[in-house]
């Protein structure tokens, strides 16, 4: 067989997996790589925007609750209430306000991320040792400088645990945005179900999980780089790392 004939048979076999509607199809990856990249990029920016805005909203809320404990009940109650609402219903309730836009999806995802982020930031701030605060006060630190330079760094492990949980669940939830055509890889899943295109549904689903795992590992790496002192403490005092782990499992599971 000539090289031409070989490449011809290979090509036909590859074509066949699209015709036969196989679950795994290399030809699909090759011919639709542009579409896949575009969907993945949309997925990433929607997730990143949601978690970042979530952090920007959650941090002042957690600081407010610590300064004025009587706000703790309403803030925690409201975020838990939001978390109970099914994602499809949440996106639909935002439809009259935002129309069919990415802003609708991002807003819904921000509201969900608040539950986890507020709780974890609060837990982190509460776990700051009183000695550290006392020492900072003795050195003449004002409340804001203490917050940024002493409390925030010490609250980072719990905060990052919250960011990791929020990011992973946001990546999964973004797919539901396909409802308004802004679901990143969810759009491909939606399209694939309607046209019974197995390779597309499986590939997009696998990419979602891959994205979640990658994001989780990257955030774990970032946390290690940002808090080098926790590793030293973890060796001498295993209880410290155990405490952060239990914070990570504390908030209610998923939506």
């Amino acid at each position, binding site marked *: 067989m000539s090289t031409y004939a070989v490449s011809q048979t290979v090509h036909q076999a590859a074509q066949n997996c699209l015709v036969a509607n196989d679950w795994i199809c290399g030809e699909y990856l090759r011919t639709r790589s542009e579409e896949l990249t575009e969907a993945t990029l949309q997925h990433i920016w929607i997730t990143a925007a949601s978690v970042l805005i979530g952090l920007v909203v959650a941090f002042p809320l957690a600081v407010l609750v610590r300064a004025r404990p009587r706000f703790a009940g309403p803030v925690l109650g409201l975020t838990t209430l939001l978390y109970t609402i099914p994602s499809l219903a949440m996106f*639909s*309730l935002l439809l009259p306000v935002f129309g069919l836009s990415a802003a609708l999806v991002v807003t819904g995802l921000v509201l969900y991320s608040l539950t986890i982020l507020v709780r974890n930031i609060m837990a982190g701030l509460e776990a700051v040792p009183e000695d550290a605060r006392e020492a900072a006060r003795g050195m003449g630190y004002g409340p804001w400088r203490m917050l940024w330079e002493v409390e925030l760094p010490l609250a980072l492990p719990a905060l990052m645990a919250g960011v990791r*949980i929020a990011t992973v669940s946001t990546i999964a939830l973004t*797919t539901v945005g396909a409802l308004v055509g802004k679901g990143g890889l969810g759009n491909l899943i939606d399209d694939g179900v309607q046209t019974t295109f197995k390779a597309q549904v499986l590939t997009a689903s696998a990419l979602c999980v891959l994205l979640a795992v990658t994001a989780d590992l990257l955030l774990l790496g970032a946390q290690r780089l940002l808090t080098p002192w926790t590793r030293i403490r973890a060796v001498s005092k295993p209880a410290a790392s155990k405490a952060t782990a239990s914070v990570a499992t504390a908030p209610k599971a998923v939506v």
Partner: protein
Amino acid sequence: MGVVADAWTWLATGSNWSGESGAWHRLGEHVYVSGVALLVACAIALPVALWLGHLGKGGALAVNISNVGRAIPVFAVLALFMLTPLRTAGYLPTIVALVLFAVPPLLTNAYVGMREVDRSVVEAARGMGMSGGQVFLRVELPLAYPLLMTGLRSAAVQVVATATIASMVGQGGLGRIITAGFNTYNTPQVVAGALLAAGLALLVEGALAVGARVMDPRRRRRPTRAALV
């Protein structure tokens, strides 16, 4: 907010509630698949979690299964099921997907609840001559009860939410009112369906929160102690 008024009108119109795609039928489907899935998930997860918790083994599994569950999109699992022969099996694909997502919170919370029971209390019970079964039933289970109920609540809310997403792959439930509204550009119907789905989820959460407090095994003894003080 004309949309809210329109949504209210939709909810107040009797014809929207009757028939195969009416709200009553959709609500019935939603409650049915959620109820069956929650029962099956409890039957699978609780014995495993309580047994592992009693033995004090398998902690890594119990905690990690929750993290894995969080990373997998509900929509993707439902979509994959709809491309398998399960598609023709009525509500089965939805129920299987709901069970898969209800097991992690049940398993993790029940296991953690069992492990967080004070070891000295368990040792004391053993010292009093309680058998393994007695320790489990009279000591560990009542003390693990609050977290057990937290797990049940998370799982129930999860199941109700997931059943809504099932409509995106053409399965029944309250979500169908929403997707049907999207297909016909009927925003009031979308909002009305969303209000129904959100209302059901909040109702389930509230009912389980109250139920858990009423049925708390340690609650019955508390009033007498309070009376002594």
